[in-house]
């Protein structure tokens, strides 16, 4: 079972809301599917993300995937540690491998995302 305090997208991003700030990353399932991650391209601080739009790119030894913003908002921090250690996304996808923190514009947007049970169901379909 994936953690229940997070919300998920169908594109395998997770989002954790704390106050008005949300932290975003990709799920363990996504990291495993991608394989060894070698590069993460993230937006600069201050950029405005739009729910469902591409905000970055994750590149593994075998594939490149776009990152889709689970919520709209302004980027307050991008995980600088990933520049030198992109493998953190594989080893700690829900922790040190987080990608961006954003100030959430509209918390209601999270209601449209998957909860843990729904995401679990999605990934067990394969």
């Amino acid at each position, binding site marked *: 079972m994936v953690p229940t305090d997070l919300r998920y997208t169908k594109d395998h991003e997770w989002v954790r809301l704390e106050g008005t700030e949300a932290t975003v990353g990709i799920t363990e399932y996504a990291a495993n599917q991608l394989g060894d991650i070698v*590069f993460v*391209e993230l937006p600069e601080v201050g950029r405005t993300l739009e729910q469902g739009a591409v905000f970055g790119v994750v*590149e*593994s030894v075998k*594939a*490149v995937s*776009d990152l889709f913003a689970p919520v709209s908002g302004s980027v307050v921090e991008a995980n600088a540690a990933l520049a030198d250690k992109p493998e953190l996304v594989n080893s700690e996808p829900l922790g040190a491998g987080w990608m961006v923190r954003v100030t959430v514009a509209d918390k209601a947007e999270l209601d449209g995302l998957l909860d843990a049970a729904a995401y679990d169901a999605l990934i067990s379909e394969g």
Partner: protein
Amino acid sequence: MPYGPHTPADRARMLATIGIDSVDELFADIPERLRATPLALAEPEPELALAARLEALSRRNQVDLASFLGAGVYRHYSPAAIDQLLLRGEWYTAYTPYQPEISQGTLQSIYEYQSLIAELVGLDVVSASHYDGAAATAEAALMACRATRRERVLVSRAVHRHYRETTATYFLGGGLAVEEIPLVADGPDAGTTDLAALERLLADPDRPVAGVIAGQPNFLGLLEPMAEIGRLAHAAGALFVAVVEPVSLAVLEPPGVYGADIAAGEGQPLGIPAQYGGPYLGILAATDSLVRQVPGRLVGLTTDLDGKRAFVMTLRAREQDIRREKAASNICTNQALLALAASIYLATLGPHGLRDVAALGAVRAAELEAALAEVGVRRLHSGPYLNEFAVRVPDAAAVHRRLIDRGILAGLVLAEAEPDDPSLTDALLVCATEVTTADDIARFADALSAVLRGRPPIAVEAGAGALVGESGGAVPELSR
């Protein structure tokens, strides 16, 4: 599964999907007269007759001209080893070596090309090559847009016209804009990029600039203030693209030293003969921070499972087979054989040899300038040049034609290359390299003097003598 091309039904479905009625509509952008028509070939001829006909045709080429033509393509001596090694069958293989286990030779040759060019330009990463200097410059402009997420590129008017036009073509349909930076009109800096105009173009807050492109030496042969152009570009958050001529880098500061983020250029001077319009060699290099924006192939060095040195295509995720429409480029055929020619050329000459080639070209050009000045033909600009410069010649196009009759290819008629620039109306762009001889220079100066003063060519002296006598000078001949 049976193999077959698209059936009429397949085609109809595809046409319906994109909303057109016929395949011909896809070619609407190509002028009718340029489209392929059915080939109307003559009946086959015996080989002997055909060879004779082709030989007769080839004799119409004027191959013994003393050439002073450069303008982007330069004549250099190629050591015989280059052509001999290029003939080896091992090189005629897939230019994209996707299977490292069977392609170590080709991969190593590309890796060595990249390493040699990296040393020459002073930048970290070099692509496995592109079509030509124009394509490489256009790719550099696109890299700048991707890296900065901006949509406007400024290119100096003293970058080769073909490169500017190719860049504009690459930008079509992508919502990107390319604008030209004017040149200084007069004074000591005439013919170089106008820095004040560049500053104004960079200052528009609503239209931030992705990249600034300037050539060194520029199209007119002049040396540009590259460090200053780079500083202005960087101050505006734009990348700086240097368009370079590779042989010159043996004596001029390399782009990596004066702050260029990307270097692009035509690799033809490195052991590739001046052959029609190509095939040539597009050089593209960048700083490490831009590596993921570099289009086309990159070959890297690694170790295999047994710990042995091995070469592989690397950072493949930028490329179209993986990244599809989001690839760094979808025009990324490399010129592996010509890159190999460049590598052999550089390895054969070595750094000292290349410096000799560049320095000798500069010496010959200075001799050319002096010889032309002696017959009253002076430079159009006063700034420093390396081995190519513009001279002012009245009625340049006619003089150029007359000089061909006298066995001299007097460079390029600048008004034909740059019809919109009135300052270049009566000017020829001439160059010298290490293959230019003192005799060539003397013949050029003498012939030019003769043409300007209405002296007839020696070969037709008897016939033309009367004409000069009747007309009394240069004017009728030049306006004939």
